[in-house]
Structures are given as structure tokens and as C-alpha cells.
């Protein structure tokens, strides 16, 4: 059997795949955070809770309406995204112009509440969500065995990340969004409806989190705590990448996910903390983050 630095190759590739999958979720979530931060100048602490909400919405759709994985993958981001847009209209709009810390605190409260509600009804343990039959089983790639669903997660997250990036960089709506990020007053003076743009942006960011939640449902179980477990790591990812660049957020997400996977092979004790250590090092060397500008 082949070995790399004394580690069997299949084990290494297995952890690499797990790292890539974690990285897919980090990338999707930090992308959403970066988009929201770019325009709203606010950190969405509820991002993890909205990811959890995505997973639960898919679960509830299946159990109460019999709607399966594929329709849920489209429906859930829309439902949760609209929920986000309503929150923005009702509450977040009142917080613009205040210290951004208030946005952080408000969304922290929202996250606690959402998590508390689902914990009340479903407890702290996870609910299983079956892998869709069309993606069950796996493929033997010769050098390793790849479960089909996991391969799909990587492909889907890549597609959505690239699609979102194209939407922001290449479309007219994206151009408005980028312009409003630079100078919202001026853009409003040109006749663009900036408040609607803010609502759409928040909804889009939340929808991305919900999409990640549906993708995650068959891999991790659907649990009320899944959001708070991942959001702190995603914050560290965002600090490392710097929130100035959309592409930066995506790349940092994948790279740190893979790094985490590799750490699990070579030094498992540090796998929980490696991203935080990298964050500390980046703060020393480049306080603005790898892709940040300040």
C-alpha cells in the first residue's frame, strides 16, 4: 500500500475529501457573510442559525409535505431567503447608521432565539435526513472510494460559489451592488433603489446559508446546534480572508477546510484549533487578512 509521510494514501485522501467538504461549507457561508458585510456593513451572527434553518426546512418539507431533496434544494433557499428579507425589512433597517456592533448583537439574539426554538421541539440530538436515492452509493476512482453524495456536495458548492461570483462581477444587478458597496449615497442619487438592494442582498446571503444547510443535511444530521458549531469557525475564516473580496472568501474557505482535513491526518489533537491558529498567525503578519484591504 502506498504511503505519504508514513500515512496510508487512502486515509490521507479520505481526510482530504472530508476537508474539501468542510471547506465547501466554509466557502458558501463565508461568501454569504462577505456579501452581507460588503453592503450592509454588518456581521450576520445569525448566519449559522440560518444554515441550521435551511437544514431543518428541508427536513420539515420532507416530513410534513413529502417534498424530497431535489425540490427542497431549490425551495429551501427561497423560503429561508424570504424569511431573511422580512427580518431585514422589519428590524435590521432600523439599525443602519448605528454602530455596527448593534447589528452583530441583534443577529446574535436572533441566532439564540432560532436555536432555542428548534432545541425546544427537537432536543439537542440530530435528526437523520436520508441521502437522495439518485446519489446513493459510491464510485471507485481506482485510488479511493468516493461516496457519490460527497462528490456532489463539492461540485454543487463550487457551482454556486462561481455562479454567485459571476452574478456579482458580470451582471447589471451585481454592478449596482458593487457600486452601492463603494458609495451607497451616490448610487441612490443616480436613481437606484438602495433600500431594496439592501433587502435583496441580505436575502441572497441568507439563501446561500440555507442552501449550504440543505447540502449538509444528509452528511451531518439535522441538529439545532449545527449552526453555532460552524459559525465561529467561519468567523475565523472570514478574519483570515478579509471581507474585502468575494473571491477571497471562497478561496480561503476551501483552503482552510482542506488544511483542517490534513491536520486531522498528521496531528489530530490540533484539528479543532488549526484554523484559529492560522487566524492568529495571519493577524500577526497581515492584520487586514489575506485578501483584505484597509
Amino acid at each position, binding site marked *: 500500500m502506498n504511503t505519504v509521510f508514513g500515512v496510508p494514501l487512502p486515509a490521507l485522501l479520505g481526510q482530504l475529501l472530508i476537508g474539501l467538504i468542510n471547506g465547501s461549507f466554509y466557502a458558501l457561508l463565508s461568501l454569504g457573510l462577505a456579501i452581507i458585510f460588503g453592503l450592509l456593513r454588518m456581521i450576520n451572527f445569525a448566519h449559522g442559525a440560518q444554515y441550521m434553518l435551511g437544514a431543518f426546512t428541508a427536513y420539515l418539507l420532507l416530513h410534513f409535505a413529502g417534498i424530497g431533496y431535489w425540490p427542497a434544494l431549490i425551495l429551501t433557499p427561497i423560503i429561508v431567503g424570504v424569511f431573511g428579507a422580512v427580518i431585514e425589512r422589519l428590524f435590521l433597517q432600523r439599525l443602519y447608521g*448605528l454602530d455596527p456592533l448593534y447589528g452583530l*448583537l441583534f443577529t446574535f439574539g436572533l441566532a439564540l432565539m432560532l436555536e432555542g426554538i428548534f432545541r425546544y421541539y427537537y432536543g439537542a440530538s440530530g435528526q437523520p435526513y436520508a441521502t437522495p436515492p439518485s446519489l446513493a452509493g459510491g464510485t471507485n476512482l481506482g485510488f479511493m472510494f468516493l461516496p457519490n453524495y460527497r462528490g456532489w456536495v463539492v461540485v454543487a458548492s463550487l457551482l454556486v460559489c462561481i455562479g454567485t461570483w459571476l452574478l456579482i462581477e458580470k451582471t447589471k444587478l451585481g454592478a449596482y451592488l458593487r457600486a452601492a458597496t463603494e458609495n451607497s449615497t451616490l448610487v441612490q442619487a443616480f436613481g437606484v433603489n438602495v433600500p431594496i438592494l439592501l433587502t435583496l442582498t441580505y436575502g441572497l446571503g441568507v439563501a446561500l446559508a440555507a442552501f449550504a444547510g440543505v447540502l449538509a443535511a444528509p452528511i451531518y444530521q439535522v441538529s439545532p446546534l449545527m449552526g453555532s458549531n460552524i459559525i465561529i469557525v467561519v468567523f475565523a475564516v472570514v478574519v483570515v480572508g478579509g471581507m474585502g473580496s468575494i473571491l477571497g472568501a471562497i478561496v480561503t474557505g476551501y483552503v482552510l477546510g482542506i488544511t483542517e482535513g490534513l491536520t486531522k491526518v498528521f496531528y489530530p489533537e490540533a484539528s*479543532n484549533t488549526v484554523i*484559529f491558529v492560522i487566524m492568529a498567525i495571519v493577524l*500577526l503578519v497581515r492584520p487586514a487578512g489575506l485578501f483584505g484591504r484597509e
Partner: protein
Amino acid sequence: MAEIHTSTVPSDALDDRSVSKAEITARRLALIAGLLLLLVAPFLIYPVFIMKVLCFALFAAAFNLLIGYTGLLSFGHAAFFGGAAYFTAHSVKEWGVPPELGILIGTAGGAALGLIMGFFAIRRQGIYFSMITLSLAQMFFFFCLQAKFTHGEDGIQSVPRGHLFGFIDLNQPIAMYYTVAAIFLIGVFIIWRFVHSPFGMILKSIRENEQRAISLGYSVARYKLGAFVMSAALAGLAGGTKALVFQFATLTDVGWQTSGEVILMTLLGGIGTMLGPILGSAIVVMLGNYLATTGFPVTIITGAVFMICVLVFRRGVVGELAASRIGRKFGLARWL
């Protein structure tokens, strides 16, 4: 109050000149009433409950030192509180040190953690600062989860309270209570002195306008780090004391939920006021105790209170009172 005028801050930045004799008397009477209340409280209310409030009140007051007087929102204060609880519990139980030394070890440990975390965190401002402190505290949480001396999920159990200064038996609830009350008063006094010192004035100037403070020649980073370490040390004092009161130290105290809780206490009571965090922690601890009996999840209420506070109540109970018509008439803002 005279010592403030010897500070380097221009005197027109201080509103103490307008304080009348009557107001000073009123202030003193209020202080004496507060002390009396603290003195008789264990005979009126269940002492363990008040001790819990006092520990969290000191914790919140220490946290407020940072957010209220420096404008830095730390999302990682649980690391200092819970970390100190571990240090105190371990030193008292495994090394057999007397309680006063155990609490000092906890405080020093909190300060050391604060120095390390602050060193990294003050490199960024605003929400980045919050995210960095949260991440570093989470890192410390994982450290506590895996380290041998914390006993992982079990925590450090049955910590002996011991004899304070060798002759006060802290297993007596009343002795423990007055010790906690004394520690609380010392801690709050330190905070009060710190806030009203020239150092504290410079911190406020950094909060109001960091660029200007820099241009006046202050080494802003050093002052921020000083405030961070001070706040961490006092949070450690509170955490170490709590470990002795409840005789255990667990992962709960280092988790991010505890960091959120101390933010809530301060926000609810009033950021940047002396009394606010104390009142806020009393409300939150009471609410927690009440909800524990009903079985309704605390996090739902906590989350709702957070949202309501941010939307309509940003100054907190004490801050809103000071800003109200009655508060302005009596100049409450100056002494709450």
C-alpha cells in the same frame, strides 16, 4: 473626587465642577444604603443566589470596562472567567493552596490569558475585534476540552473552600458570603478608580475618537491592551471566586454562551454605566433561575431580550433612566 482634577485631562472635559454639596451628600447616602443592603441581604435572600449575582455582577462590570469605557466589544470574555475558575479550582484542589492564593492565581491566570488574547485582538477594530476574541476564546474552549487538568466534560468537581487567611472557615455560608461581598466591593472599587484615573480618561478619548487620540501622541494600542488585561484580570477575579462558591469549574463557564450572557447583562443594565452591569446581572440571573423552574428554554428568552434591547433599549435600564426627564433633572448620568 478631588484627585481627578490633578489628572492631565483638561478640566472642562469633566463635569464634576458643577456637582453641588447636596448631590455629594445624596451620593454618599445612596452608597451607604447600598452597602447596608449588601450587609443584610444574606438574612433576607438565599445567600447562594446573591453570591451568584455578585460573581456575575463583577464579571459584567469587568466586561463593561472594555465595551463601556474603551468601545471594544469582546465576544470572548468567557475564556477569562471560566479559565480563572479552572485555575483557582485546580490550585486549591490539587496543590492545596489557601483560598485567597487560589483566587489570586485565578486572577493572574485571567490577566495572562488577557495579555495573550489582547495581543492578537487589538490588531483589528470594531466587529473584527469581536470575531477575533470569539475565535480565540473558542480555541481556549477546545484546549480546556482536551487538557488533562480540566477533566474534560466532567470538570473539576468538589473543590474545597478551605480557610481564608487560615482562620475563616469558608464552609460557613455566611463567611463565604461576606468574603464574596468583600471581593465584589474591592473589584468594583478598582474598576471605579480605573475608570476615573487619567488612564481611564485616555481610554474614553480613544472610544470617542481614536484618530485624534493617536494624533495627540497616545500609544493607542498600548492603552487598549492595558484595558484588555485589566478587564480580563477582573473577570478572572470573578471566575475564581465563583469556582470557590459553587465548588466546581466546568466547560460551561468557558463556552461562548457565557460570553453572550455577560454581554446581555451589560447591555440590559446599561453599557458604560457603573450600576448598569450590576443591575443587569441581577436581572439575568433571576430570570435564569425562574426559567429553570418552568422548563422553558432560557436561550429563547435571552435571544428575545437581546433583540428588544438593541431595537428599543440601547442605553439599558440604567442608561435610559439617566437619560429620562427625571434622570436629567437630578443629573443621574454622573453617578450611575
